């Protein structure tokens, strides 16, 4: 288990640094079966106007991390450690009032399934407008006008009439647009998109991603894009964080991670993805085994039970010691294989595959 370390007094300001900085974050849920280590010692940074793609299997801690940024975990069953800095504000130690003012205002979130994530009982206009009223103190009329403007901005036709419709009267893509409009109504500095396109078909998916990119260019919003689709990451993100069992497996720019992946888990993810230009006869290679139980995570490197190379790296290391991401900055991964070994293995692998 990671120990919680506080550098400096919580809530105090700090020197200039990245726009969003997550340091040694750990999230634990107490359940009837025991303690679930959903996120364990995760660190990453995000700059304004850039997009960070977080990828990983279900249960790798992607969503949990981002709910922690918004402070949406139930405090009765959750223990959160580490630090999350949004400019000079520490979020884990922040009070409820501070977080309520922050949510929907400076930090907004888009959820995966826009049908269940929108209230079925209120009109789209009201749901967008109430965020604006809450945070900007706008009147009903102003909030409604703003909702119309936002719907127009995200490309919903006839926003003046659509504003009075209910979510069930919208199509899936329209709902996600409305969701985005709701998230952006207060011009947030940070937008967290939790699998925003998973529930949508491919053409709508592309439109939504383009929309996010366009809005980012206009307003300089920082975006965290959670997905398990590496294709989405390749097309949208600047940087990538590959998560495994609540920890960072690999981090770097999109180019670095997708072109020269270093971690065996990233290799697995890439080779389990179908490619348009490869032969249909070549079977896809899934990552063998199943994701680890986060109740009792494996000792050492959490990936070792599914990894083909612990012998190469030295089983003692892999089985007993947690690797941390190295180097500290730039393209880094949490694996004991040497850079040369990784390069060799990867070259051999891609040859096999081709």
């Amino acid at each position, binding site marked *: 288990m990671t120990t919680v370390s506080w550098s400096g007094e919580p809530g105090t300001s700090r020197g200039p640094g990245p726009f969003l900085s997550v340091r040694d974050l750990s999230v634990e849920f107490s359940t009837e079966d025991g303690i679930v280590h959903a996120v364990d010692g995760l660190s990453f940074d995000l700059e304004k106007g850039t997009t960070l793609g977080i990828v990983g299997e279900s249960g790798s801690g992607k969503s949990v991390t981002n709910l922690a940024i*918004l402070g949406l975990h139930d405090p*009765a069953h959750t223990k959160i450690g580490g630090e999350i800095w949004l400019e000079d504000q520490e979020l884990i130690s922040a009070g409820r009032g501070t977080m*309520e003012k922050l*949510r929907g205002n400076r930090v907004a979130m888009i*959820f995966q399934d826009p049908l*269940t994530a929108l*209230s*079925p*009982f209120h009109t789209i206009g009201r749901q967008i407008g109430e965020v604006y009223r*809450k945070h900007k103190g706008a009147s009903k009329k102003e909030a409604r006008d703003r909702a119309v403007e936002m719907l127009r901005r995200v490309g919903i036709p006839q926003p003046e009439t659509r504003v009075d419709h209910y979510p069930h009267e919208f199509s899936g893509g329209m709902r996600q647009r409305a969701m985005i409009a709701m998230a952006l109504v207060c011009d947030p500095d940070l937008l967290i998109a939790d699998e925003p396109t998973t529930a949508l078909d491919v053409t709508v998916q592309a439109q939504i991603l383009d929309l996010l990119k366009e809005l980012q260019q206009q307003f300089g919003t920082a975006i965290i894009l959670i997905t398990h689709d590496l294709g989405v990451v390749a097309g949208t993100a600047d940087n990538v964080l590959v998560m495994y069992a609540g920890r960072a497996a690999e981090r770097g720019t999109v180019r670095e991670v997708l072109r020269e992946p270093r971690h065996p888990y990233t290799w697995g993810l890439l080779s389990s993805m179908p490619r348009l230009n490869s032969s249909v006869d070549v079977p896809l290679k899934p990552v063998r085994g199943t994701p680890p139980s986060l109740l009792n995570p494996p000792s050492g490197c959490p990936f070792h039970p599914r990894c083909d190379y612990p012998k190469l790296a030295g089983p003692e290391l892999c089985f007993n010691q947690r690797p941390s991401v190295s180097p500290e900055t730039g393209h880094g991964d949490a694996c004991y294989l040497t850079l040369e070994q990784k390069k060799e293995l990867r070259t051999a692998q891609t040859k096999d595959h081709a």
Partner: protein
Amino acid sequence: MTSYLVRRVTGALVILVIISAITFYLFYAVPRDPARAFCGKICQPETLALIRHNLGMDEPLFVQYWHWLVGIFAGRDFVQFGSCPAPCLGYSFATQEPVFSAIVDRFPVTLSLTLGASVVILAFGILTGMIAAWKVGQPLDKIASSSSVIGASLQIYFVGPLLAFYLVDTMQLIPRPSYVPITENPLDWFTHLLLPWVVLSIIFTANYTRMTRSQMVEQLAEDYVRTARAKGMSSRTVFFRFAWRGAMIPILTIFGVDLATLLGGAIITEQTFSLHGIGELAVRAVQNTDLPMLLGVTIVGAAAIVLLNIVVDVLYAFIDPRVRLS
């Protein structure tokens, strides 16, 4: 909306016809002859036949049923009782009074009892359920939840006399239950029905507490509630404006179903407190093999339930915009 109501009312009429036909048939399946009751102890076969003829009971069953049905809309003439204007539900075998006017006399009692109890059930059940959900896992939740289990295991005919003894006889807090028409004196109407309302609602209230609590807890875990929190809405707004709306829908559904049980409970309550309502008529009609009265009470009770269910369905559309009435 209008076409919806027309459709629903038509459907309701069909249901009522079916219910009355079944009741009619069931009554004749019982091996008891109402004519014999009229005939007295020394009964000549000729007299019996004459009584049967006068009551219209010598005709085939479906013809009798048809006469009964037509009587409701057009009125009918009886050999024994004379003319009966529409809406005619016939004459009581036991008391010889017109069934319709007997029911009209007593209906306000049962209606007051049922509607008043509904208000108590919904108000208290939902309120305590919300408190329990707000303080989930805390002492207040445990008190509300466990007292609801106790409430659910009580019985009207047990609690009724007990409360009457303490509150009316010993402490003299409230007047003895009786029926004072609301048009006569609203305050007396209220105070005299207070105890029956409370007694009738005790079992149900407990159910609604538990249901509201579990529905609220469930709704609070829904995605759209999380979205509301992610938008910066305060816990109170999330609780009352978002989760509450969702929780009310299943509760309303169950309430629609419970209305029939509630009417049944009203009959027991009437008996417990000697209130002269529909329930008393029904019990007496069964004891006296009084077919016209039994049919009349059944059909009026069924009509009330069907009608209230239509009201519930219309309320549905107000709470949930996904329900369309067109």
